[in-house]
């Protein structure tokens, strides 16, 4: 088993699309604004719109569907399972929120009402609407540019740098993990499903231990290298990957501002939490 064969989620893919050319700041603001709008609303029309726009943006990245098909299926199944559990544990939640009751299938405590179905669809789509935008953000924003944007938006540069370092350290950990796993397996530690749950937990510690301690040893090296290059001497720092905001970025930011304020206004002046047409 080679290190490259183990897929560790998704990562930056440069396809040079229009979204890749947008500034990292714009994309980060878009991401945060998106999450804010999703959090404020329980209106199926708005959520449906967000899902469509999100999928459209995902298509615009020109990343092949193959790169995220499994994720799409996994997320969809996780969310359906989530909805199922919400129904099993609180079957009358929808009725409680919407305030009316139209029974479709009487089953006593687990009666299926139109309101509950509507509620479950709304919540599930609400969760799902965050899926495409997270993919868009990861596919189109280079990690270093992301940290530069964080710093530009007011996060202290040392913390922004920690974020960048985190992202750059991920491949290193992958490599170490696989090496240590092979070494331990060669020493006869059972990691497959054949071992019992607690035996596996214990053998996991035998991988985590060396992994953590070798990483901790590296902190010394890395921080010395950074200090030697003058990291942390000044109050501010500049970023090689920080691009100035272009006209299209300002236009996008303006658009985002309008959308977010509209969403917040809508929430403040709305009388009912859920939009329910029936």
């Amino acid at each position, binding site marked *: 088993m080679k290190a490259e064969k183990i897929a*560790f*989620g998704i990562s930056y893919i440069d396809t040079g699309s229009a979204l890749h050319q947008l500034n990292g700041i714009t994309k980060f603001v878009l991401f945060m604004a998106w*999450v804010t709008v999703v*959090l404020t609303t*329980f209106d199926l029309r708005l959520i449906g719109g967000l899902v469509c726009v999100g999928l459209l943006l995902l298509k615009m990245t020109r990343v092949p569907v193959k790169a995220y098909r499994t*994720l799409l299926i*996994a*997320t969809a199944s*996780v969310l359906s399972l*989530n909805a*199922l*559990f*919400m129904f099993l*544990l*609180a079957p009358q*939640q929808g009725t409680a*929120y919407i305030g009316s009751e139209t029974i479709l299938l009487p089953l006593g405590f687990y009666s299926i009402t139109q309101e509950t179905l509507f509620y479950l669809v709304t*919540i599930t789509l*609400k969760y799902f609407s965050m*899926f495409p*935008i*997270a*993919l868009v*953000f*990861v596919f189109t924003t280079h990690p270093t540019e992301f940290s530069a944007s964080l710093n530009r938006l007011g996060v202290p540069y*040392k*913390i922004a*740098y*920690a974020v960048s*370092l*985190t*992202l750059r*350290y*991920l491949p*290193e*950990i*992958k490599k170490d*993990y696989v090496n240590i796993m092979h070494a331990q397996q060669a020493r006869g530690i059972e990691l497959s499903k054949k071992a019992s749950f*607690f035996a596996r*937990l*214990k053998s*996991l*510690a*035998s991988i*985590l*231990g060396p*992994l*953590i*301690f070798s*990483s*901790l040893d590296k*902190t*010394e090296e*890395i*921080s010395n290298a*950074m*200090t030697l290059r003058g*990291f*942390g001497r000044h109050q501010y720092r500049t970023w090689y990957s920080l691009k100035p905001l272009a006209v299209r970025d300002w236009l996008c930011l303006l658009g985002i501002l309008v959308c977010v304020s509209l969403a917040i206004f809508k929430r403040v002046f709305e009388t009912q*939490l859920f939009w329910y047409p029936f």
Partner: protein
Amino acid sequence: MKLSTKTVVVIAIGAALYGIGGLPMFGVPVFANTTLKPAMAILALFSVLFGPFVGFLVGFIGHWVTDLFAGWGVWFTWVLGSGIVGLVIGLFPRLTNRRIQSGIFAMKDFALFIVLALVGNVIGYGVSAFLDTVLYAEPFAKVFTQLTIIASGNTVLIAVVGYFILKSAAKRNQQSSNLSEE
């Protein structure tokens, strides 16, 4: 706020370890949207060794990385929860006078470690669960079940995996602290 270069690197490496370790391939799914993450032990270790501030940021950045790269969208309520777990467990060195640093890991420290893990999980993910009911209108019964499972599961997990890791951490520190002059 004074942050040394070493702290920045420690936060980054902790967050990277916690972030990768939290990916679903290492998790044990137990309930809807709920996985037991062995990586919780990493968060606990970094909090124990470096205190509440590092603990919070390792939890926050690490969970953010997990959510982003797993591809299911960032669930801020739970990202914040992980941060608080790190913060609470990070009280450990203050409460034990940094005994781990001098190579001592006694039974009463282990007991305190478990208590902190439990309290941290209940408060941290309790905040997440509460925010879920407000922001996502999730049924209270569901998030409460999630919370109970996560808090108890994580505590057992942190205790078992954490015990071995902390013991070897103490042993390593001991090697460099109990030198005697000849």
